[in-house]
């Protein structure tokens, strides 16, 4: 869903931004892309997502969907197994204890995201109530 959020011009960051999984995937994607010497813009264009999306994935800010990953891999002419091998290597470096369990949520960034969302919802609800009251 984060893709939709990013497209819709929301805050554009996954609630899981900065979690070790996403950061490891981002590093793997960046490594592959730099190996091929392709700019982010080109990958974004070929994969049918904006270049901001590729940058977001590489920085571990977005939680990409399966379809986007498949298209990015096709653009990079890379079998999925290679990406996963790199992902697991990076994950072992970032977070050696990962793998047993996936954290429900958690990074301070995610909590800040939820807090800002709730604040925006509260102001929106207040505005709605005011409009209805009038």
């Amino acid at each position: 869903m984060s893709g939709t959020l990013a497209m819709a011009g929301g805050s554009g960051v996954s609630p899981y931004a900065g979690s070790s999984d996403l950061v490891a995937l981002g590093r793997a994607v960046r490594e592959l892309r730099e190996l091929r010497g392709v700019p982010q813009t080109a990958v974004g264009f070929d994969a049918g997502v904006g270049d901001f999306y590729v940058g977001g994935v590489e920085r571990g800010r977005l939680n990409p969907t399966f379809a986007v990953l498949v298209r990015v891999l096709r653009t990079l002419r890379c079998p999925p197994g290679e990406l996963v091998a790199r992902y697991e290597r990076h994950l072992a470096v970032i977070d050696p204890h990962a793998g047993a369990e996936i954290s429900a949520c958690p990074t301070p960034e995610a909590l800040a995201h939820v807090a800002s969302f709730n604040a925006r919802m509260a102001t929106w609800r207040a505005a709605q109530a005011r409009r209805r009251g009038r």
Partner: protein
Amino acid sequence: MQVEGIWRPVPPEQRAFGWAVRELRARRWMSQEGLGFEAGLHRNYVGALERGEINPTLRTMLRLVRGLGMPLSEIVAVYERHLGDGGR
């Protein structure tokens, strides 16, 4: 995903991923409900995923493989075999 009377063609990659999930789940003699419980997903979601109607996010895929008790590389290997094209 199937939305009220709208039929969408299932992308081949998504279908292959669903088949891979189904194969690995069945190898472990797990039910869809059991896998859903392990992975923290609804059984209907697991069923739709196996039919290829769902485009899961990375985190959802990770929840699935952890529910199956295997690394991501294993399910990707089965996925590539189902896709039959070397995964390209």
